[in-house]
């Protein structure tokens, strides 16, 4: 299918700019548009930047004018950023998604919508299956605000997909991304001078490498499938092993005191930990990626330990990377 026209929301994020650049380089895509109030992270060649707030109803007209066949929704805020309050985060996530869907409804050219969602919807639970499949979203109640936001967003898209069967909606459920150039909650956490952990817990974590995060999006745009697809690097890594690889001293805190200790550390300038992230540090989470490889046809280049190592290699304080490479291989 040549001559595709794609619009990317949140083009000012690392992933948004990276995706626009990959689409520019690809001969299949004739036209790329980027929607954001922020400028792109680095200059883009032929991407048309549309400066608008995703929460603004005006995007309906703008998107209809662009006559795109694919909309990539990449403006879901996953973690509290220094300048963004949790109310703004909720607004961007829920109201933004609603406005975007309204816009898609009014743009008859749209054939597929790809959403960069979050595996956070599964939560982090002690008794959970050790690999969540796509159908397992309803095993546990949505406990945090972010989970409820994501749940609401997924519901909107589900309803939309039911009402508009000619549009293919792909909900990509991303595990946290990690890599040498990305700054996220996990990379901030691993770069802190001291890393608080839950005393007596060693959760299994799972990541997707920043390059794979982009390539998975491109793969889903090229071959859209209906419904939810988990995105993660195969395998898992224990938190203890990860923190040791990163060469950080830990501060083990008993579970009942963890939230208050982490809060106090946050006030002294260490990274703040969101409730979702705290649960992750206690119970961990991993997903099954069969659907990604078999239906979307994308196999991540980095396993979870390899992705973690690639992040560590950039920041490692010691010359231990070659040995770790052996261990990961």
């Amino acid at each position: 299918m040549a001559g595709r026209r794609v619009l990317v929301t949140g083009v000012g994020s690392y992933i948004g700019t990276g995706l626009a650049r990959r689409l520019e380089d690809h001969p299949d895509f004739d036209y790329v548009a980027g929607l954001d109030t922020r400028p792109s992270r680095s200059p883009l060649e032929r991407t048309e930047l549309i400066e608008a707030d995703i929460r603004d109803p005006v995007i309906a007209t703008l998107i209809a004018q662009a006559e795109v066949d694919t909309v990539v929704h990449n403006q879901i805020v996953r973690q509290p950023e220094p300048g963004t309050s949790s109310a703004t985060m909720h607004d961007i996530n829920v109201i933004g998604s609603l406005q975007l869907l309204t816009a898609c409804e009014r743009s008859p050219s749209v054939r597929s919508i790809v959403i960069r969602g979050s595996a956070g919807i599964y939560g982090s639970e002690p008794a959970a299956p050790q690999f969540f499949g796509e159908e397992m979203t309803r095993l546990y109640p949505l406990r945090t605000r972010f989970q409820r936001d994501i749940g609401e967003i997924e519901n909107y898209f589900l309803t939309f997909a039911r009402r508009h069967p000619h549009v293919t909606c792909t909900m990509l459920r991303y595990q946290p991304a990690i890599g040498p150039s990305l700054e996220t909650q996990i990379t901030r956490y691993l770069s802190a001078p001291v890393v608080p952990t839950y005393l007596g817990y060693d959760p299994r974590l799972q990541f997707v490498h920043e390059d794979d995060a982009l390539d998975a999006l491109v793969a889903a745009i090229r071959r859209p499938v209906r419904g939810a697809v988990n995105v993660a690097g195969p395998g898992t890594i224990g938190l203890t092993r990860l923190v040791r690889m990163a060469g950080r001293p830990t501060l083990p805190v008993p579970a009942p005191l963890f939230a208050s200790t982490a809060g106090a550390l946050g006030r002294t300038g260490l990274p703040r930990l969101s409730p979702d992230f705290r649960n992750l540090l206690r119970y961990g989470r991993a997903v099954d990626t069969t659907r990604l490889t078999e239906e979307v046809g994308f196999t991540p280049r980095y396993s979870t330990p390899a992705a973690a190592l690639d992040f560590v290699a950039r920041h490692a304080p010691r010359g231990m990377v070659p040995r770790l490479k052996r261990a990961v291989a």
Partner: protein
Amino acid sequence: MAAGQGIEVATLFLRGLRGGLDAGLDLPQALARSASGLPRGARERVRGIRRRLDGDYQEDEWGFDGEFRDAVEPVFDFLYDAWWRVRVSGVENVPGHGRALLAANHGGILPWDATMMSVALMREHPLPRQPRFLVLDWAFELPFISSTIRKVGGVVASPHNALRLLGQDELVAVFPEGVKGMAKPFAQRYRLQRFGRGGFVEIALRAGAPIVPVAVVGSEEIYPKLGESRTLARAVGAPFFPLTPLFPWLGPLGAIPLPSRWRIEFCAPIETASYGPEGADDRGLVLELSEQVRQTIQRAVLENVVKRGGTFV
């Protein structure tokens, strides 16, 4: 090496370590530097510790950590040989490769029966295999216990986990009595409880894995449950709270299991592949196979109780 020499070497080591730390090296590096003066065995050990501290070790996707398992092996060996004096029969009934489901009776609060089964298979089986065992989900909320169980091969008791493990051609151990087995009073020992809805048979049918019934004798005397406290169970969020002669009166020491004598018998496998995966939807077949497994285990348990003789001596 004379005792005096040993002390001298240790002092040198500690001095080197302190020097390294003072010079601004971090712990793993300082360890490596000061270890050079030690005899070979100790040097190897320090190197091993340094590797662990660097995160330079392997865990599989389930969190099983082979090195950790090897490190705690002496404890397991002691329990196996000296504490419980385990006798094993029928290991040849466990397939040497490919998927299989071990179904055993369950006693005791901590998964010692699963641990001893895995020691038995690692030591007595002609092709030693590390089984993965399903552990009641509640254990995974507890600090230390959760991470230890995971590192030695335990996973959360969930059909999703069992199916995935069998799909990877692993050997999986289940305890179909579940919490009913753990919570039965001392007077009810070795009387197998109801096997629920036969979920483990469904899993075996769906995966086409043979079921090996396993009878474990001894595990039901290690924590003789005299009563239980609902109030305390609710207070700590546990499914039940046992009162034994030692627990909770002695605190953590109450977790020390009594030294009963053990016998483990692996019975002849029950083939399930011939029914095909659609057999899992046949309620009648599932309940029938489940009852067959239950009776096999019950018979083998009673036989082994008789063969064992005295409980503790």
